């Protein structure tokens, strides 16, 4: 069985074969993997190197906690991976990035309006939660296409707040956007 694992923009091809053993990017490794009965704790011995991790399934990815660092890993078998690559190649041009609420809270301010040009990292929402004001920022360059909330409103976790049309590599420049107001 061949898998593609993606973590922090890095891809690994991992083959698990009853005869050949485990190969990572075609290199065989001695692997001894154990799950312990409490809370997702695992122990991996990899060529005698010891890695202690906690693993948890998060829907379409896996959270792996090693030595304090949390890694989000997507695992696909080779076929699913090829299929998705084919599909996703047509999606980038008019894709919309949606900023969602990372937690329940109250909207304090919405410093952008539909039509505004935003740059990656610009503030788009100020959300109060856990007794703190939190700034949510644009995940990409683009133009604001939707504002789903207004100040004072309560929001749930994962609720869409602001939509931004992604410019891809051809982000509209300030002039074009300004003339659209």
């Amino acid at each position, binding site marked *: 069985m061949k898998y593609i694992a993606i973590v922090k923009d890095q891809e690994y091809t991992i083959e*698990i074969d009853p005869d050949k*053993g485990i190969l990572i990017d075609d290199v065989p490794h*001695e692997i001894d993997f154990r799950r312990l009965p409490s809370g997702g704790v695992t122990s991996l011995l990899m060529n005698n190197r010891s890695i202690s991790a906690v*693993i948890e399934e998060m829907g379409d990815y896996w959270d*792996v906690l090693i030595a304090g660092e949390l890694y989000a890993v997507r*695992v696909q078998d080779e076929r699913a991976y090829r299929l998705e690559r084919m599909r996703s190649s047509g999606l980038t041009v008019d894709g919309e990035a949606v900023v969602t609420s990372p937690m329940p809270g109250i909207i304090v301010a919405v410093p952008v309006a539909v039509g505004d040009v935003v740059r990656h990292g610009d503030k788009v929402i100020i959300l109060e939660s*856990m007794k*703190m004001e939190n700034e949510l920022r644009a995940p990409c360059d683009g133009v604001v296409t939707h504002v789903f909330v207004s100040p004072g409103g309560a929001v749930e976790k994962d609720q869409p707040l602001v939509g931004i049309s992604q410019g891809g590599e051809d982000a509209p420049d300030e002039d074009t956007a300004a003339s659209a107001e």
Partner: protein
Amino acid sequence: MLRDDGLLIKKFDKLLIANRGEIAMRILRAARELGIATVAVYSDADRNAPHVRFADEAYHIGPPPARESYLVVEKLLDVARRSGAEAIHPGYGFLAEREAFAQACTDAGIVFVGPPARAIGIMGDKLMARATVTAAGVPVVPGTTPGQSDEEMRAAAIGMGFPVLVKAAAGGGGKGMRPVNRAEELPDAFASARREAKAAFGDDTVYIEKMITEARHIEIQLLADSHGNTIYLGERECSLQRRHQKLIEEAPSFVVDADLRRRMGEVAVAAARAVDYVNAGTIEFLLDRDKNFYFLEMNTRVQVEHPVTELVTGLDIVQEQLRIARGRRLRLRQEDVRIKGWAIECRINAEDPYNNYLPSTGTITASHLPTGPGVRVDTGVHVGNEISPYYDSMISKLICYGETRGEAVLRMRRALEEYRILGVKTNIPFHQHMMDSHRFLSGQFDTKFVEERFSMDDRESSHALEAALLATLAAHEQNQRAAQIVAPGARDTSNWKWLSRWERLRR
């Protein structure tokens, strides 16, 4: 004994803890160790919290929002009455620095484990506090006096020179505080500081203070008994902050020598005496590059970061609070206080250091605490508990002790690696990155360091390959299991057998 200043001091054997989370646990443990019976309170969100299970008794006080539960004075006094609690410890936050609550306790004949209401009132109003300690000879940061108009404050700001800070008179924990670099920014800063102050404290009075740049936040822990004895337990270094929230504290401070410690300690004692202070309290100072120090504020309660002082002095500050409230004399004189070794505290928060420190809510699905020599964990969250938006995002405090600062840092690194929390994102990687930082190791930082000169971007992810492999093995295991449901005859491909085959191969 009811003192002239309204503070009730008497022996009590049953204590109500008007708080939740790690500080409720901290107080419960101290009370238990003194043989005092304990009463916990809980909102609907906290029925399963450790403080409920750990107390001798527990009473429900309403829905999750604090203003409908932990902040409702009448409910707390009612629980005290029903349970027979003779004293209330407020912890920090919530009602800890509400003058009216302290007074209400006294009026109800209940010991308030803290200072006289009057001291809370004076120190809680930043402007009154400045005036009071100034009169006692305590140096303060230049700033405006009460009741000035926006225009007057603007003129004063220009007079003292930018940058300045707009601060809420009732503020604390950085709330209602705004740095201002130019006169034009003042109106916005007034507006947002007032909005935040109003929401947080119900009082939107603001004032202006000169901003001390390249400053360190150094605070002095005090203990004062009801017999007129006040001592200082040395300093804490609390400069590592983000948005005025402390993240890492240590004791002692890299930059405070014995002479400066004594001078700051004596000034702190003078500030406390100015309000006839009783119980544990903290004087916060700004220390500038030239080792001038300025009174910032007094926290009239136990601090989050009190454990670092406990580790280097060998004292138990919360037990001392309870002893003082029971009328006991301090057992230590100033000359008995000795600082030994070094302690560092990391606040473990549910927030994502890789994504602008956004708070992370969810249910704790795994929690494995570091243990062993020199490691202490104060936590109020267990597996199955929820980190909810109703309360702050602190999960626990990890405190490490070493003979030297270097040893404390190395131990903290080890403990951070051992600590495993799943279910929410935590700032453990932030702390790890800080413990690896040369600036931190060499003690070169001020209150702006985290925000302006520290980035998670240069942190290397050293275990990406292993994470990929582990997730793949887990996914494969799951696939195999799923396949077996379809074809139950294929027993010999089960996960464990498959693994032992590898074991056979490699031996």
